C-alpha cells in the first residue's frame, strides 16, 4: 500500500476537509450479487460513489472494479479493508490520481448540419482531440477519451451548437506501480499463504504501492 511519503503528498493535495479523489481497484471473482455486496459497503456509510466500472482484468475469469470516491485517507483505507473482507474479493488497492493512469470515454451527438455549416465546431473538435464514430446526414457522434475536465470542457464548448446527446463512461484506471495480478493470483491459489501474501500491510510503512 501507499508509502508514508505518498500519504503526506495526499494530504497536500487534499481539500481543506482532508478529502480528495481516490480510485479503488478491486480484483474479484465474477459472481452475481458481488457488485451489490460491494456497493452497500459505501451506502451503509452514506458515501457517494462518483464512478463505478466493472470489467475484465488481465486474468481470465477475474473481474476488476474501479470505484471513484471523494473521501479522506482514513475513510478510504477502512472502506478498502471492508471490501477486501468480502469472500469473493481477492484484493483491493486504493490510489490517488497521481498514482494512476486513468481515462474516461465520452460520446457526443451533434447535428451534422451544425458542424458542416460552422467551421468553429470542427475546430473545437480538433482542439479537444475528438474522433468521429458515426457520421450520418442528420447527426454525427464524436468520442473523446480523457480526464473528466477534458470531456467536460467539450460539453461546455458544444453547448451553443445543439448538443443532442451526451454520455460519459465510468473511470478506468491502471495503477502506475502495479506489476499486474498474475503473480498475486498464484499466491491466492496456493493452499498455504506465501510470504508476500501474509505481509501485514497495516504495519507496512515502507512498502511500495503494490505490496499487499
Amino acid at each position, binding site marked *: 500500500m501507499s508509502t508514508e511519503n505518498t500519504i503526506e503528498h495526499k494530504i497536500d493535495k487534499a481539500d481543506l476537509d482532508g478529502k480528495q479523489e481516490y480510485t479503488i481497484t478491486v480484483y474479484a471473482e465474477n459472481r452475481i*450479487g458481488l457488485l*451489490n*455486496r460491494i456497493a452497500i459497503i459505501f451506502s451503509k456509510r452514506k458515501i457517494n460513489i462518483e464512478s463505478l466500472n466493472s470489467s475484465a482484468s488481465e486474468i481470465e475469469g477475474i473481474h476488476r472494479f474501479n470505484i471513484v470516491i471523494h473521501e479522506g485517507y482514513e475513510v478510504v483505507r477502512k472502506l478498502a*479493508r*471492508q471490501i*477486501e*473482507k468480502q469472500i469473493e474479493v481477492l484484493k483491493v488497492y486504493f490510489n490517488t490520481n497521481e498514482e494512476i493512469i486513468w481515462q474516461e470515454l465520452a460520446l457526443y451527438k451533434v447535428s451534422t448540419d451544425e458542424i458542416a455549416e460552422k467551421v468553429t465546431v470542427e475546430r473545437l473538435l480538433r482542439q479537444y482531440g475528438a474522433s468521429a464514430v458515426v457520421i450520418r446526414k442528420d447527426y454525427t457522434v464524436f468520442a473523446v477519451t480523457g480526464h473528466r475536465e477534458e470531456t467536460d470542457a467539450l460539453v461546455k464548448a458544444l453547448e451553443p451548437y445543439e448538443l443532442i446527446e451526451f454520455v460519459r463512461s465510468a473511470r478506468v484506471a491502471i495503477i502506475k506501480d502495479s506489476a499486474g495480478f498474475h503473480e498475486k493470483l498464484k499466491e491466492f491459489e496456493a493452499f498455504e499463504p506465501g510470504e508476500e501474501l*501474509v505481509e501485514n500491510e497495516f*504495519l507496512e510503512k515502507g512498502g511500495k504501492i503494490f505490496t499487499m
Partner: protein
Amino acid sequence: METAQDTIQQNEAKAETSKTLFKGTGSQVLLNGLIEEGVTTIFGYPGGAIMPIYDALYDYADKLEHILVRHEQGGIHAAQGFARASGEVGVVFATSGPGATNLVTGLADAQIDSTPLVCITGQVFAHLLGTDAFQETDVINITTPVTKWNYQVTDAKEIQEVLAKAFYIAKSGRPGPVLIDITKNAQLQLEEFPEYVKCNHIRSYRPKPKVRIEYIEQAAELINSAKKPFILFGQGVILGKAEEEFKAFINKSGIPAAWTIMGEGAIPTSHPLNVGMLGMHGNYGPNVLTNEADVIIAIGMRFDDRVTGRLDKYAKQAKVVHLDIDPAEIDKNVKAEVGVWGDCKETLPLLTNLVNENKHEDWLAKFRQYNQEEIDQVITPELYPTGDEMTMGEVLRNINEICGGDAVIVTDVGQHQMVACRYAKFNNTRSNITSGGLGTMGFGLPAAIGAKYGAPDKTVIAIIGDGGFQMTPQELGTIMQFGAAVKILILNNRFLGMVRQWQQLFHDKRYSFVNITSPDFVALAKSYYIEAGKVDERANLRQALETMINHEGSYLLEVMVGRENNVFPMVPQGMSVSEIRLK
C-alpha cells in the same frame, strides 16, 4: 418418477458398493452433506418452498434431529445459542418469503457477534424468480449486509460444493452466518452426485494469515517495557478456542485482564488476574484505569462504542497492541501501535514465549483499590440489599451460590443482562450467551433452548426481563414439544427497565412508554405444561431458585424485583470511560 423412499433405499444399497456416486434429489444430497459436516441438530420451520427438503428429512429422523420452533426468529436464535454453547455451526431451515425475512434479525445478530451459522432457505422455482410469485422475496439481497456470505442455488449440481463452502466460510477466520437459498426445482432435481468433499480452500478467501514473527516481537517489546500494561479481551479468545493459550499468556506476564461481555467466561471469574468487565456498565477499575494504562493489549475484541465510550478521550496515553484475526478491525476504531493480524491460538503462544515473567503488584493493587470502592458503594448494596424490594443482583448472587459458576447463563437484553454479566460467576468458557453487538430483545428464550441442545449436560438458565420475554414467548411451545430442560428466570420490574433508567437519568424522568404490563407468566407457562412459580418476597427467593434449578425438566420462575432500580456503575453516552459514575 421414483419416490424419495425408493431413491433412498437404492442409495443405501448403492452406498455399500460405490462411494463415489449417489443417485437422489437435491434435497437428499443436501441432508447427506449436513451429516458429512457433522450436523446433528437443525432448528427450523417448514413451508411451501422448502417442502422437498422436509420431505427428504422425513427419512433422516435417526440421523438429524429437527427441532420445530414456533417462529423462524426463534429458530435462528436457537441455532445461535447452540453454536455459542457448543462451538459448532448452528443450522437453520426456513421457507421462502416470510420464513426467510423472519431470519433477518438473527442473521444481523450473528453477523455482529461473529456466530457461525448455516441457514438454508427454500425459494420459489427458478423459472418463477422475478415474477413476484407466491412467497417469493429477494432473500439474497435482503440478507447481503447481514451475512458473511450468501448464495442462491438454482441447480442441484451446485448443492454439494456450495454447502461445503458454506460450512468452511461460517466457521473459519472470523466466523459468521451464511445463507444458502435453494430454489424448489433444485431441491426436487434428480441427479447422480459425486462423493461429498469438504472445503478447505477458497482462492479469494484467506481466513487467517501466516503469522509474522516480527510483529510478535514488536508487541512483546512494547509489553515488556510497560509499567502499567492492561489486557482487554473479547470473544475472539473463545471463538479461537484459545482459552488455555490466553491463560498461559496472562499467567506468565502477570497483566490484569478485563473482558467485553462477549469475552466473559474465557477465563474463570475467580482468576486472580481477571479484573472484571469493560464498558458502559462495566467495573469501576477497568474503566478508569483504561485511561491510565501505558500499554493496552487488545485480544479478539473490536473497541465497540459501548466499550470505549467517548473515543477521542479513550486511552489516549496508551500504546495499543491489537491482536485480531480480522484485519479490518485493526485500526478501525482505535489506532494500534502494533497490530498482530492472526489467529490468537497461534499468536498468543508466540507472544507468551517472548514476554517477561512479571507480577505487576502495584498496578494490580490499583485495580483492587477501585474494586473495593465499587464493592462498598455499588456491589454490596446490590447483592445484599437491606430494603424490602428485591434486586436483580441478589437473584444472581443466589444463583452463583446454588450453581457455583457451572451453569450456562443465557440472557436477553436490558438491565437484567448487564446485571447478569456483572455478577454471574463462570467457571467455564462458552457459559455466557448474550446478544452483545445487536442487543436483540427476544434473544434469550430461544437462544437458551439452542444452548441446551449445544450443552445438554449443563444447567441452562435463561435470565430474561419482562419486556424481552414478551418478544418471543411463543418458543415456550418449542420447549413443551421437545422438552429442552431450560430454566427460565423472569426478572420482572414492570418496566422496560434500561430505557426507563435512561429516561430517568437523561430525559428528566419523562417515562415515555416504558410502563409495560405482563400476562400471568406462571399461568402462561402452565398453559404450555411447563412447571412455574413466582416470588415476590425475599424470604422465598432462595427456596424458589433451588426448586427451579433442581427441577427435572424446564421450569419458569418469575421474580418481582424493585421497579426503579438502576444499573451502576455507568459511563453515560458521550462521556469518557474515566468519567464513569458510581451512582
